């Protein structure tokens, strides 16, 4: 028993180390790619940074100050050096350090993504498991139909229809934004939690109301993915020789379902959950734009519109790092559930 545990530990360690070793080169590659891309853009960043009414000599001064007169590889190396010191540069548009801009906006995006994933998991996984356990029943058909229908819907269209129905027509929910009136003091950055901490019931309700539509839009898609995944893994495990053997041995169905099928099926679903979180981050960019949600999505679109390339690189790095971080977390979680190793 002890030897087995040690074996699992070492697989786990080697897996995590392997992922950690690849993390910096992955992020470096991402940065290099976006860096090259942002310099292909035929807009002179020095002109933008200097402002509209700057004279030619002022533009030159800005160019020198930001090091924009140096060669591209040199600029990239300088940028990397700054990144390693936790400095992502200054935004030409907001005139704030990028790190500051990101820290203000990350909680909004995370709040939305987490609520959406939570909704999706609460709704999608049980339904998928039930469908998988009762294969080819009416429930299974309904669930499958629901999942393929929701996956085929464009999220921006659903967002628009939800806005149309629930805020324009019925007036039950706010059209856009994150809260009515002044936001509570930022303690966690999650407005709902901050409102609870501030002890303001009205603000809590307002924050929750603002969350409903964007979170539901994002959750619909994720729920459909999770549901398919949970269902298929339940079916895969149920039809495996191991389960056939257990039934032949006369184990009660209840034990087989809870002890074997669910445990094995959930491991695959957890992987999917983590991947969904990554995709939710990018999906939320569109949904944030539609609902005027003040997160990373709006920031990315804004910084690109103003050729604010430091901000573009910052957002890309941030999203890439969050994505990679979620994937790592998933690997670790999966090993905890299913210690057979090698993901």
């Amino acid at each position, binding site marked *: 028993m002890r030897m087995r545990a040690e074996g699992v530990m070492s697989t786990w360690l080697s897996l995590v180390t392997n992922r950690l070793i*690849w993390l910096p*080169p*992955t992020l470096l*590659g*991402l940065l290099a*790619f*976006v860096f090259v*891309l*942002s310099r*292909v*853009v*035929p*807009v002179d960043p020095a002109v933008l940074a200097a402002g509209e009414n700057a004279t030619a000599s002022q533009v030159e001064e800005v160019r020198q100050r930001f090091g924009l007169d140096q060669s591209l590889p040199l600029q990239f190396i300088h940028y990397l050096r700054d990144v390693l010191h936790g400095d992502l540069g200054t935004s030409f548009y907001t005139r704030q350090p990028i790190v500051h801009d990101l820290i203000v906006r990350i909680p909004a995006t995370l709040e939305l993504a987490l609520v959406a994933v939570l909704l999706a998991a609460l709704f999608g996984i049980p339904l998928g498991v039930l469908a998988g356990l009762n*294969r*080819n029943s009416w429930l*299974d*058909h309904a669930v*499958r*139909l629901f999942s*393929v*229908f929701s*996956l*085929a*819907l*464009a*999220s*921006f*269209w659903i967002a*628009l*229809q939800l*806005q*149309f129905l629930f805020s*324009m*027509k019925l007036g039950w929910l706010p059209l856009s934004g994150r809260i009515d009136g002044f936001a509570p003091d930022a303690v966690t950055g999650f407005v709902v939690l901050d409102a609870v901490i501030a002890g303001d019931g009205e603000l809590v309700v307002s924050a929750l109301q603002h969350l409903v539509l964007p979170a539901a839009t994002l959750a619909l898609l994720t729920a459909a993915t999770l549901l398919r995944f949970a269902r*298929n893994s339940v*079916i*895969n495990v149920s*039809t495996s020789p191991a389960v056939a053997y257990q039934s032949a041995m006369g184990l009660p169905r209840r034990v087989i379902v809870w002890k074997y099928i669910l445990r094995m099926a959930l491991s695959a679903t957890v992987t999917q959950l983590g991947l969904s979180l*990554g995709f939710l*981050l*990018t999906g939320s*960019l*569109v949904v944030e*734009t539609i609902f005027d949600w003040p997160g990373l999505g709006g920031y*990315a*679109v804004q910084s*690109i*519109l103003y*050729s604010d390339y430091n901000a*573009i690189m910052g*957002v*890309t790095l941030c*999203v*890439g790092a969050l*994505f*990679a971080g979620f994937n790592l977390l998933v690997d670790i979680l999966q090993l905890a559930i299913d210690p057979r190793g090698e993901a």
Partner: protein
Amino acid sequence: MNRLFRRVLRDRTTMAGLILLSFVLLAALSAPLLSIDPAEVRIDRRLMPPSSDAWFGTDRLGSDIFTSIVLGAGITLLIAGITVAIGVLIGVPIGLVAGYYRNWFSDALMRIADIALAIPQIVLAIALTQAFGPSIKSVVLALSLTYWPLWARLVYAETRSIRNEIFIESAVALGVPARRVMVLHILPSVASSIVVRTSIGVGVTILAATTLSFLGLGAPPPTPEWGRMIAESREYLPEAWWYPLAPGMAIFLTVLGCYLFGDGLRDILDPRTRETL
């Protein structure tokens, strides 16, 4: 092949997908037959609700929404077709090579795939739009640069799993060159997965492409794009409820067709997950 074809005809899911896709294809092909110019502005007819005259209503410039949808079908299929073709052409060879060899090079290839997958599509698309202007070219480039890993990862995983099968090992032992093993022995075994992924991939690509055009990154007007039509309709809600309805349904039915076709095909090709619907 004949048996496969008969099974497709018998399978309801696949047939439903096939019928939906045929409709879209038919619309795309018949578009040149329409005698109406979508760019024509007819202010007297603007924002009319659906009627026998204009089935899906008219838009802010008085154009018939039904006509625009039919015209948009060709553009949508064109973008999705080119993107998916590029994705397959880049992804499949990379997946084969990376799955066949077990060395640092194949590791590096898959890491590049991970990086490409981690690039936020919208960020890339907006950056490309700034370089090349809003156009179909920018959309196709942004999508294919980020989508090829989907095929690479699939082919990689499948190649890895059959790499140690006896028929592959014996081919290698007989001295068959690596390239020949990959193309003649591995590729046919993973082909059905590639077909399924491609059908679903077309659907995913259509969703992404319409999202980009919704954000104003697609072809500029008067090219009728489904995503942009929905974006334009936002100003006229809640009065013009029909305006976003038809383009949204067009996207939904086309993507649904791709998914159903791909799903059904997978069930036919892999009987383990087969079900009746």
